[in-house]
């Protein structure tokens, strides 16, 4: 079966300018040779720490920033090339919800108009667009009679995020990218919005890309998960296999770093020391090697390739590829 989204070799380096002549002084390797697929109907989780490239990946998928290299195909059609899907068509198929619920809404528009804005821009008549907005308010659990004419500042964070979900769904997209969409919400509200997302996915046959730094939330909502570190995929596969038996040393450390929830079994030692390095001039070879307890010479020389096993999991680590030259391989 053809995947709904196929991404191959996605790369984005941002120049860092400075100095007297504003020359390019360095490159931020935000996303480097990232390839993955998203099947129709699944939820792909993307996890990683700050600077790992998860949000840049989302922005590249939405064509909010131009990509340097790589291809993106939606339902078999390349995005960006001439004969392919235009940006207008793309935005009908793919929509995004952001972390900051307030910044994503026009403060001068009543929320029903914010929801109807996309359909209006795509040529739907105003009464029909507003009717769709009312239906969507209902669908995200807000009474249209009470909420349609309110302004963003009159709503709570959880209510605003429901509006953003409704707005993202207004063009009836097939894929929704949720970039830290529940991260700013309180736990009790986060649970409500997560329930809503699970319900909507079933009712509307949606596919999600769910980006978060919260490992618990990603485990809860995702079918497959992709772990990123400094612009690279380090491990990628079915959520249960990765959480039960992580194989990349970074994935292991990330899971061990989660607070234990059991005061009788507290974390005695932090699995990693230091902060994630700056994505400007990342380490050579394996980018994790500067924090990896098992790093050897080969890790500095050769970037490890992402190698798949038969269970649908792929890992980029020299220790797991026989013949790599690592003593543990």
């Amino acid at each position, binding site marked *: 079966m053809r995947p709904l989204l196929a991404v191959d070799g996605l790369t984005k380096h941002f120049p860092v300018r400075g100095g007297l002549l504003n020359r390019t002084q360095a490159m931020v390797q935000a996303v480097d040779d990232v390839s993955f697929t998203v099947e129709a109907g699944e939820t792909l989780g993307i996890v990683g720490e700050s600077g790992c490239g998860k949000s840049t990946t989302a922005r590249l998928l939405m064509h909010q920033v131009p990509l340097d290299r790589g291809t993106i195909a939606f339902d078999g059609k390349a995005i960006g090339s001439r004969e392919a899907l235009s940006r207008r068509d793309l935005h009908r198929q793919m929509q995004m919800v952001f972390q900051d619920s307030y910044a994503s809404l026009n403060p001068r528009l009543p929320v029903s108009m914010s929801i109807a804005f996309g359909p209006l821009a795509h040529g739907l008549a105003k009464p029909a667009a507003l009717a769709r907005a009312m239906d969507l308010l209902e669908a995200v659990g807000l009474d249209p009679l009470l909420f349609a004419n309110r302004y963003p500042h009159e709503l709570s964070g959880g209510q605003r995020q429901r509006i953003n979900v409704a707005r993202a769904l207004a063009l009836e997209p097939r894929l929704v990218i949720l970039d830290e969409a529940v991260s700013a919400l*309180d*736990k009790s509200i986060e649970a409500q919005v*997560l329930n809503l997302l699970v319900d909507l996915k079933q009712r509307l046959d949606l596919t999600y890309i769910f980006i978060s730094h919260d490992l*618990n939330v990603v485990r*809860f909502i995702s079918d497959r998960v992709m772990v990123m570190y400094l612009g690279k995929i380090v491990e990628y596969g079915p959520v249960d296999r990765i959480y039960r038996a992580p194989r990349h040393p970074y994935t292991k450390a990330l899971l061990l*770093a989660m*607070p234990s*929830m*059991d*005061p009788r079994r507290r974390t005695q030692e932090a699995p990693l020391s230091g902060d994630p390095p700056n994505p400007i001039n990342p380490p050579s070879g394996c980018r994790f090697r500067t924090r990896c307890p098992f790093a050897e010479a080969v890790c500095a020389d050769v970037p490890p390739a992402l190698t798949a096993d038969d269970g649908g999991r792929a890992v980029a680590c020299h220790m797991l590829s026989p013949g790599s030259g690592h003593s543990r391989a």
Partner: protein
Amino acid sequence: MAPVVSVKDLRVRFTTPDAVVSAVNGISFDLKAGRVLGILGESGSGKSVTLRALIGLLPPRHSRVEGHIAVAGHNVTKMSDAELREVRGTKIAMIFQEPMTALDPVFTIGEQIAETIVRHEGVSRDAAYRRALELLEMVQIPSAARRLKAYPHEMSGGMRQRAMIALALSCRPAVLLADEPTTALDVTVQIQIIVLLRQLQQELGMAVVFVTHDVGVAAEVADRIAVMYAGRFVETGPTDSVIRSPSHPYTAGLLASTVLGAAHGQRLEAIPGAPPDMTSLPPGCSFAPRCRFADPRCRHDLPGEYPLAADRAVRCLRVAEGEIAVTSPR
């Protein structure tokens, strides 16, 4: 042993031209030296305001603090600004979520720590710099001697957090107030700071009040937990027993809505509704409008703090009368 922090019926109100916000509505607790109290609550529950009241950081013109706060024998609510400045740093210190609220961007880390030590202890600048170096080593900043000369913007987030902890501990406070100090950090850095704080707390025998919205973080650091809702402690008790068998419906709901251990893709047991408007709290239990166990009395009578077995207390009429038992989520 006498408690090093003693709070009796603390109330904090903020007055704005339009309304009066009742942020803290009657909190009492005692904390002994060497113990860690975790205050767990969501945004607007009053947990940070409670901390600021303890160290006298609330703006006097816009806030009204009532009740009794004693820290290391000093009555904080009755002190002048000059007296407060003397107590801050030596008896009580605070660390924040965002280290740049505590660090001055135009001075090096070493200058800031040394200045604090000179100001409070009257030692020479050389001696103060030597202490500053020891402190940076104590918070495990690599190449500490070089970092002494670094400005805050030259450090990573985790290092800045360590520098702020060093600054807070520079005059050996008896009480450390921690306001979500790990919330803005990446998960691999967060656990480093948690382990460090726990280690320092034990070595120095400090009392710590640790405010967080994250049950996991509270489980890692706190001996006791106080769950805060709408400016009141709704449940208090030893961390282990509160997390394993919550008794207040809000605590149970909060634990059930943390997705840890929830079956994949299943519905979470979310608490319906939203926290109350702090400018017009309901007359009875503040949680009653969202509580599935609430009966008419809950909506009229404010529940007291009822003691339970095993050093626990709960602010719920129905639990106290044995009419409901909230089931444990795990």
